[in-house]
């Protein structure tokens, strides 16, 4: 596991603070929204909480922002314990899902609001507002009303308002959901650049795994109130720790089997009578263990006749979907299992038709095991 991604950002701002959640529990009646979460967001890093709806990520955000209080555990921002502090005293900048701009105030008044609350002198407020507007590329928009702005512009204003008071932490609550795809990608990159440049410790909440992979220094995958895995995007994508993560992040093929032998660091996994897979054995793995074997769809390659691979399977093509830069094929193997593969589509390349028989193969190191139970 490599966690060096945040290191570059940390140097940009020496005043940055980290966020630390210890054993945070929050229950709503019989429902446990957060079941003892431990998480540290390092100073200057962008950490994404990724999870499906109902995973507790929104509750976690509210606990950090101060709109919900945890039943147990503590929340620390820098040297301060903010577990029960009022939202106003936390010094956290937040961008809401629908931006929550104040519609009765113009852009400048919106951005000036947190500074006014801090009783900053008017000339200083003017300077800071101008700086924030420039930072988000909206110089000259100070007199506009929020209703006169496009979705992307509104988001920039929300961002400016969240960073103008030098917050100890920036919270982003699915802020890109309302934007169309192109604008969304552009805003993601802009937010990422801004976050890096200002060295802002940032907690980003989303259910969109693609977004999480693009933006994050690290990702915390949540499910049913628990952290399932914490790591860099590459790490989580390549080495999902369990079935949930494997399934939730990207597409994957998951085979259920039993380890029959371990030969020179390679585990042999029997999936079906005619399907035996080989993968790199995990530490402590023993013959007889029930596991899930995961392979990403871009790993299998087409095999010529007589060509060998650690894992070689033959199947019938049941579906082909063109998705722009690549094609997804669904193969039905003789064991009845299905295998999803994704291959780049080159100009002039052929697209295979349904019913074709294919042999595909992948290396043992392209496959890894997750606990089954």
């Amino acid at each position: 596991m490599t966690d060096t991604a945040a290191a570059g950002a940390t140097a940009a701002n020496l005043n940055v603070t980290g966020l630390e959640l210890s054993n945070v529990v929050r229950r709503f009646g019989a429902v446990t929204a957060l079941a003892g979460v431990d998480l540290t967001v390092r100073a200057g890093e962008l950490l994404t909480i990724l999870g499906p709806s109902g995973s507790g990520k929104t509750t976690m955000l509210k606990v950090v922002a101060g709109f919900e209080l945890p039943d147990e555990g503590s929340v620390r921002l820098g040297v301060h314990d903010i577990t029960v502090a009022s939202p106003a005293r936390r010094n956290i900048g937040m961008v809401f899902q629908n931006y929550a701009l104040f519609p009765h105030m113009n852009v400048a008044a919106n951005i000036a609001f947190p500074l006014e609350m801090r009783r900053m002198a008017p000339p200083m407020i003017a300077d800071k507002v101008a700086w924030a507007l420039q930072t988000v590329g909206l110089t000259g928009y100070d007199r506009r009303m929020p209703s006169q702005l496009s979705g992307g512009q509104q988001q920039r204003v929300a961002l400016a308002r969240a960073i103008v008071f030098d917050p100890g932490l920036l919270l982003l609550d699915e802020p890109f959901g309302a934007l169309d795809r192109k604008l969304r990608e552009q805003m993601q990159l802009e937010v990422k650049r801004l976050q890096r440049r200002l060295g802002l410790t940032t907690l980003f909440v989303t259910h969109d795994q693609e977004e999480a992979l693009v933006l994050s220094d690290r990702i915390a995958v949540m499910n049913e109130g628990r952290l399932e895995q914490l790591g860099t995007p590459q790490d989580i994508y390549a080495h999902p720790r369990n079935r949930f993560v494997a399934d939730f992040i990207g597409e994957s093929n998951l085979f259920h089997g039993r380890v029959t032998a371990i030969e020179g660091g390679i585990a042999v996994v029997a999936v079906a009578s005619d399907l035996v897979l080989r993968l790199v054995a995990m530490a402590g793995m023993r013959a007889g263990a029930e596991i899930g074997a995961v392979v990403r769809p871009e790993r299998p390659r087409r095999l010529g006749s007589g060509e060998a691979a650690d894992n070689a399977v033959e199947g019938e093509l049941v579906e082909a979907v063109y998705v722009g830069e690549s094609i997804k094929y669904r193969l039905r193997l003789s064991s009845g299992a299905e295998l999803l593969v994704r291959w780049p589509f080159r100009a002039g390349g052929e697209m295979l038709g349904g019913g074709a028989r294919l042999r595909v193969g992948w290396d043992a190191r392209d496959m890894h095991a997750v606990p089954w139970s």
Partner: protein
Amino acid sequence: MDVIRRRPMGAGRRPSPARWALIVYCTLVFVFLMLPLIVVFPISFSSAQSLQFPPPGYSLRWYKVYVNDPVWMAATWRSLHIALWTTVLSTVLGTLLAFSIVRGRYPGKGLVNQVATAPLIVPTIIYSIAVYGLFAGLKVIGNWQGIVLGHTVHALPFVVLIVGAALRTFDMAQEQAAEGLGASRLTAIRRVTLPQIRPALISAAFLAFISSFDELVIAMFLGGANVTLPKKMFDNIQLEIEPTVAAVSVLQIVLVTVVLMLAARFGSGARPVA
């Protein structure tokens, strides 16, 4: 498809008989409802000694009578005074109640809501008798403050309903955003919530004002010697038939219309502050 699309009502075509019937019916209802209001205008400018229509001649004598009569003027000022106090009290209390009912999470909230809107359902006369009994025991019959209290409770449902409806559609995230940006709860409400529900507040205040300024029954029971304008008009019609009451009505209609126009002017939509 153009063929399927309905024509706008009555556009470019002779109205059907059913449509004619509707137009005639609506006109009749409108005339029937408006006639008393319209008739009162010419009568108020009558030169005659008694209420008659059409007036034999025109003059401003009844307006002069009204303005020069200290009893009429006292009743007018008293009513205005009571209505303004009622407006302030019921708007403030009703808004607080609306916040509690919409935002609060406590047992018995449903009951609070029922009680707050009950004066709308309970007949005014029943309410008046009940309050009379209470106030008689407290020896506050005949105080203008008593009428204000009676009117405030009576006006509360309007405020609770109107402000409550506005609060229900208000996006709570905005208040949270304000708090997150460093505002106290109170400041968040004052700077972010209230300015945005201002149209509702103004409508509510207006209705509270009218409900008090126009109110007869409660004022009759609680007023004692403190005669309000509606009470004075009521007495006037009973004792003597002369057009002063028409002049007063006209002035009342004008006042209410002006207040209504002001409410519409300042009550509609959120407008820029800066």
